[in-house]
């Protein structure tokens, strides 16, 4: 397998796995919990490492998974006291656990071959050469096995418990009343997040994991109104960020993880600007359209009351509009054949009068091709 293919496959499996669980984190307004878990598992990794005395993946995954669940438990505990809000609880718990991890690493750094930089930043570029051995035989890059395993596990759990995850996320009290233990589902999801994060950050680093957990689901959230589509779209966004990021990194000769993070951010910005319903752009466009409609209607109404014609200068004086706004409004109405300009000034055409009559109270509604649907009766 070529190194490029390995890097892309590792990136895509991890991005997909993170997107699946990240979707539910974002919907539960717990996006930061992924961040917290990705840091707080450090002591678990170190302890697993010290106990098992080898740098194999399974004990580390288990140790990290256990710490992940402990993180969630501690956050819930401090949150449930009613003294701390959820975000503050997260902020209290994870630095403490992470710091313990840092102390453990520095205290035993001599005895263990564990690099803090590697844990935090990972390096996806090395994954093709970190091979997994089975009975002395190489069976391919380790990151690919871990990533694939984590992705399969996520697919399995999210697939099996889709309905339960959905109802506990949307309406926990109904879920509880119907007998779907929301707390159990919560811990199931959080265990899954822990395992996913740990499996992922060994290859791509904690920072990129956070980006992959949160950014693709947040992007998908802007693009769809259905949970199932949101899951699919976040996986797609994650995969696109991976592939695009790899291309960008090759082009710039820069960090692959960094480039992937940048591309996922760019995708989010694109969705934010261009999504059909939620976006800034469509909102601005809609507002602009409403404002233009309003101007046209005001002008038509005013001309309707004036007899004969109204000189532009007079309209400008009465409306105190800018020259540009007046000119543009008149131009649009003339293009539609609703007003005409003669020597006496601006006046309403029969078409314009008709359009005004049909517009009722609201802003003028035009036909698909600029009022072509409006005809003289």
């Amino acid at each position, binding site marked *: 397998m070529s190194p490029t293919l390995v890097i892309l496959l590792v990136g895509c499996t991890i991005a997909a796995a993170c997107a699946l669980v990240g979707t539910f984190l974002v*919907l539960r*307004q717990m996006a930061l919990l992924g961040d917290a878990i990705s840091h707080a598992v450090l002591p678990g990794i170190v302890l697993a490492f010290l106990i098992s005395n080898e740098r194999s993946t399974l004990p580390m995954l288990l140790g990290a998974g256990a710490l992940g669940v402990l993180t969630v438990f501690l956050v819930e505990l401090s949150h449930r006291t*009613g003294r701390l809000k959820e975000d503050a609880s997260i902020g209290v718990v994870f630095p403490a656990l992470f710091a313990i991890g840092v102390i453990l690493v520095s205290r035993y750094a001599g005895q263990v071959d564990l690099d803090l930089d590697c844990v935090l930043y990972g390096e996806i570029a090395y994954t093709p050469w970190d091979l997994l051995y089975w009975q002395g035989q190489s069976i391919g890059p380790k990151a690919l096995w871990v990533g694939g395993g984590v992705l399969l596990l996520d697919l399995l759990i999210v697939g*099996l*418990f*889709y*309905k*339960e995850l*959905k*109802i506990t*996320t*949307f*309406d926990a*009290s*109904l*879920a*509880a*009343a*119907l*007998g*779907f233990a929301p707390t159990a589902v919560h811990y199931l999801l959080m265990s899954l997040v822990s395992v996913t994060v740990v499996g992922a950050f060994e290859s791509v680093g904690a920072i990129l994991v956070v980006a992959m957990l949160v950014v693709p689901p947040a992007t998908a*959230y802007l693009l*769809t*109104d*259905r*949970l199932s*589509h*949101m899951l699919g779209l976040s996986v797609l966004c994650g995969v696109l960020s991976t592939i695009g990021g790899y291309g960008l990194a090759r082009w710039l000769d820069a960090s692959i993880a960094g480039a992937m993070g940048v591309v996922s951010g760019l995708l989010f910005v694109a969705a934010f600007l261009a999504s059909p319903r939620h976006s800034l752009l469509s909102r601005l466009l809609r507002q602009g359209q409403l404002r233009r409609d309003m101007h046209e209607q005001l002008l038509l109404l005013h001309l309707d009351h004036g007899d004969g014609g109204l000189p532009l200068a007079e309209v400008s004086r009465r409306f105190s509009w800018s020259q540009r706004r007046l000119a543009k409004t008149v131009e649009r109405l003339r293009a539609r054949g609703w007003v005409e300009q003669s020597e006496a000034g601006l006046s309403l055409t029969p078409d314009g009068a008709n359009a005004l009559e049909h517009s009722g109270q609201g802003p003028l509604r035009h036909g698909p091709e600029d009022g072509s649907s409006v005809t003289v009766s």
Partner: protein
Amino acid sequence: MSLSSPTTEADDRTPTPADDHHGPLASGQPSTHPNPLQHDALTDRHREPAIEVHDLTVAYQTQPVLWDVDLCLPEGKLIAIVGPNGAGKSTLLKTILGLIQPITGWVKVFGAPYRRRRSWVGYVPQRESVDWDFPTNALDVVMMGLYGSLGWLRRPGKAHRHKALECLDRVGIAELADRQISQLSGGQQQRVFLARALAQEARLYLMDEPFAGVDATTERAILSLLQDLRSTGRTVIAVHHDLQTVAEYFDHVVLLNMRLVAAGPVETTFNTENLQRTYGGRLTVLTQAAEALLKARAEAPKLQRGGPG
């Protein structure tokens, strides 16, 4: 049938299981779902109250919310829970549903703990309790009412979609099935919640402020739905805020202010003295309005009320 259509009940008989086949709940299409009213327990239905609460005390941290409440609510009535803010009304509902563990006391639903009666009870939470920006549509939310009968792991199918659509139709918004829930008005959102409860095909409905923040049309529609439910022997217990409509809408009333002030038929319980004990002295105008309404209702023939009055 649509929620907004006039109520079809006119008879004054005690509802029997047989009525279900003609009642509004089954109108048009025979229900394929087992009717909880046709349960074996129905034979002795008058022996078991819908809700029995004994010595119930609930506290958040050390702050008591409900204090030593004893309550027995009959089946087949529309029952309002009334009281000032922070009186523990929602808490009472949530405790009945097992969402909150009491410090002392117990709750029985049709003579058994709630967890053995889950499928008999439908729940309408407060509208603000969920995130309406959740990526889902109206039909999907209604389908959640069917999750209980599905149990763990099983996925809803075509029949469930059909059933959910029927329930949306019954609250009069079938045409909004595909609408994203944030695009619904407050009244429409409330109807979605009611449709979801209908999908639960329950015998007892617990509703947390079903009339809160809805327009007049929706309010009438919801009332008509509640009356339909009653006419087929269902029980509805609703937290209610509008004192002026209590006497008009409900049969029974529970007056609550941390302690139980009074509970019983509206005619005997919903009076100035009890209201003042519930709200303190702060209630002159509303009390008088309620009194006036009660008087008006006593004089008028009981048009609104079917079933066992």
